[in-house]
């Protein structure tokens, strides 16, 4: 098979496997904590694309702007990381909870790109099964207390859902199908120019959580900052179906709706990945689109299913190769900016089994995480 050409050079902090803890809550806390740790360069080890060890690229990573461990809320810019361990991350319904604001100076030309990870809980789901991720491209977050998250005048909420404290939340971190504890593996890929940052949480055959943000080089607006958010479990919709293409609701919809305005490929309501494009005036909703083929059993053939939905992990009968398809960035016709706006940089759909590497022999240059193929550092992927 002809492998794609990379647009970027990449640095890797991958294969950080974590075993199951004694409860779903502890597993969720550990996952959120380690994501933060990885983003600020305090977890894992880094390599270049050849697998050679490199110093942690601290200046390219994120710094703590301020934070709250549910007991103590910091002040804007104090730089204090109150998330010192997984136990610092607390959630509660309508009471104190943890949040943290991280800053990156590379993603946006303004040098003040921030994310707020907020952990209010609601809906009675296991603790930390809902995590809010809010972005600020330039203005930066202010305010916040032990019972309310910081806000930013230009904030963009990924996956908004009404919840306590008027905070929009997402069904991230719900990596169980029945409340059980779970193990996971954390992978952090960053382009060497520090413009793109991607976190993948794999759990066996699934890429159950994907958060990415950065400048895409192949989109029709500039700077083409795209934020990706996809998570597995689909807890909100009470689906226990985990599949290689399952995902919960994604991207910043104005209205949380199963049927409306949800970018999706295929007929399954769980077949969704999404992202938001960040522009000066805020954001717009997109989906990670894919090539489709007519579904001969649905809607009188008037339907197109994602290739992967159709093929599963079956390789091409003639070449014996797996699909490698571009990830389109497309906004639904019902959104603010309808149209296909480009492709995700160095990210592809593939139907190879999770953990596969490409080329099929030799040093792994790409790896399969869930349904996504990503650049890789020559190591054997731990999924």
């Amino acid at each position, binding site marked *: *098979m002809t492998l794609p050409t990379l647009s970027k050079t990449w640095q890797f902090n991958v294969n950080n496997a974590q075993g199951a803890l004694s409860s779903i809550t502890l597993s969720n806390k550990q996952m959120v904590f380690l994501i933060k740790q990885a983003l600020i360069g305090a977890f894992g080890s880094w390599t270049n694309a050849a697998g050679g060890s490199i110093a942690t690229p601290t200046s390219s990573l994120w710094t703590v702007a301020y934070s709250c461990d549910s007991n103590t809320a910091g002040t804007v810019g104090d730089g204090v990381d109150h998330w010192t361990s997984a136990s610092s991350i607390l959630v509660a319904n309508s009471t104190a909870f943890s949040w943290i604001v991280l800053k990156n100076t590379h993603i946006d030309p303004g040098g003040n790109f921030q994310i707020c990870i907020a952990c209010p809980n609601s809906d009675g789901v296991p603790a930390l099964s809902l995590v809010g991720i809010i972005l600020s491209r330039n203005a930066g977050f202010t305010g916040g207390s032990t019972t309310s998250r910081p806000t930013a005048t230009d904030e963009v909420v990924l996956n908004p859902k009404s919840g306590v404290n008027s905070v929009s939340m997402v069904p991230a971190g719900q990596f169980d199908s029945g409340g059980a504890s779970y193990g996971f593996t954390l992978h952090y890929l960053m382009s060497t120019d520090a413009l793109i940052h991607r976190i993948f949480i794999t759990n066996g055959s699934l890429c159950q959580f994907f958060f990415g943000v950065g400048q895409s080089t192949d989109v*029709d*607006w500039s700077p083409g900052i795209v934020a990706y958010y996809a998570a597995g479990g689909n807890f909100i919709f009470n689906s226990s179906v985990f599949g290689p293409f399952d995902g919960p609701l994604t991207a910043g919809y104005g209205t949380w709706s199963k049927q409306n305005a*949800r*970018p*999706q*490929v*295929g*007929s399954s309501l769980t077949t969704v990945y999404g992202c938001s494009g960040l522009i000066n005036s805020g954001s717009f909703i997109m*989906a990670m*689109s*894919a*090539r*489709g*083929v*007519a*579904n*001969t059993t*649905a*809607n*009188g*053939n*008037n*339907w*197109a*299913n*994602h*290739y992967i939905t*159709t*093929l599963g992990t*079956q*390789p*091409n*009968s*003639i*070449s*014996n*190769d797996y*699909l490698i398809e571009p990830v*389109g960035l*497309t*906004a*639904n*016709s019902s959104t*603010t*900016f*309808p*149209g*296909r*706006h480009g492709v995700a940089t160095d990210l592809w759909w593939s139907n190879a089994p999770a953990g596969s590497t490409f080329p099929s022999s030799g040093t792994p240059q790409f790896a399969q995480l869930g349904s996504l193929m990503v650049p890789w550092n020559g190591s054997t992927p731990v999924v």
Partner: protein
Amino acid sequence: MTLPTIEKTWQFNVNRNIGALGTNLAVNKQLLLDMKNMLIATGSLGTWTNASGATITPANPWTVRYSCNGTTAGSVGDGVDRWQSTSDMNPGQMTGVTSLTTTARSWIVLKNTTLDSGGNFQVLFDWMSDTNQGVSQWFDYGSCTIYVSRTAGFTGGTTTTRPSATDEVFCGSGFTATTQVNTNFVAYGTYCPIFGDFGSITPGGTGLFTGGYTLHCLTAADGTSYRLIVSRGSAVSFILAFEKLSNGNSSAWATPNFIIHASAQMGDPTTNSGTSIGNSDALYTACKQPYMVTALAPGGGKYKCYLSTEALEGQFMPQKFGLNAISNQYLLAQIDLMSLDTGFLGRQGYVTDLWMGTTPPGSTMPPGGPNNYAQFGSFVVPWNTTNPLT
């Protein structure tokens, strides 16, 4: 908009507009004759140009192998073209909806030396259909069986029987050879309904199609692609394309030929259903109906393919979008060949220099000219700078 790079050098004989001829039979006679003449590039029909619009002598045309006008049948390799005028175009008379005609009729075998590495790719057009048998409007002279032979070549044939080839492949539905005649005939089992858009035709003579058509022929100078496009206003009512896939997914498929033979508003040939599952555009029908793309399998035989492209919310992109809200530009989407047939599962490659578009039919690109691309129905093809007639 960043227009896609045109990969092949194209030759054009386009904008042949035929006005109303009064009856479906008259129109279909003219169209089938024109299609043949386009493929053999006799020079008597239209003007061939290059992409700049300059007159050329086209490279790698098809040649007539032998033929029959319903009165006289040629012999193998005599090279005589008995389709000289519409009076030579005589459809057969089917004896029923489940059996092929055995009456005298026109057929022709054309040969191409460039599509297949063996240099002897042949196609047979067998105009078997007569007016409807009181069953289906689809039979209103609008059906022509198309077979191809990759290397062996066609032999035999009389005024009442078609030529055959040991490696012949029927282009169309009825993929189980033993049932082609008997079970799938009502719908479209053994023939390719070449003229498409029959929805409003009144069986027997008058109807929508009597209103005429515009025929366009685009061929690749290297002899690896031949496209006949019949446009009727905003839609492509029929497309017939003989292609060599230039970007196949494996060296294991060394001679990947495929044939697109799609009509608008096709039904499902597997169920004998006349219910349209297609689109008013022929190529969209091929997106929804795999029987409209026949791929020649390695080692002989065939398999079905869909035309496909990127999708969102269950719809192909061009179905969803007009202007891009950011770039204020239209979409040109690559078209892939995808097969779901056992043994041939997977994406086969993409169709070179053919795209799904979102501009209105008849549009040209780039804006302001020159007209290097033109939209017909929902699809965009390379163009020769002229103003396209739809």
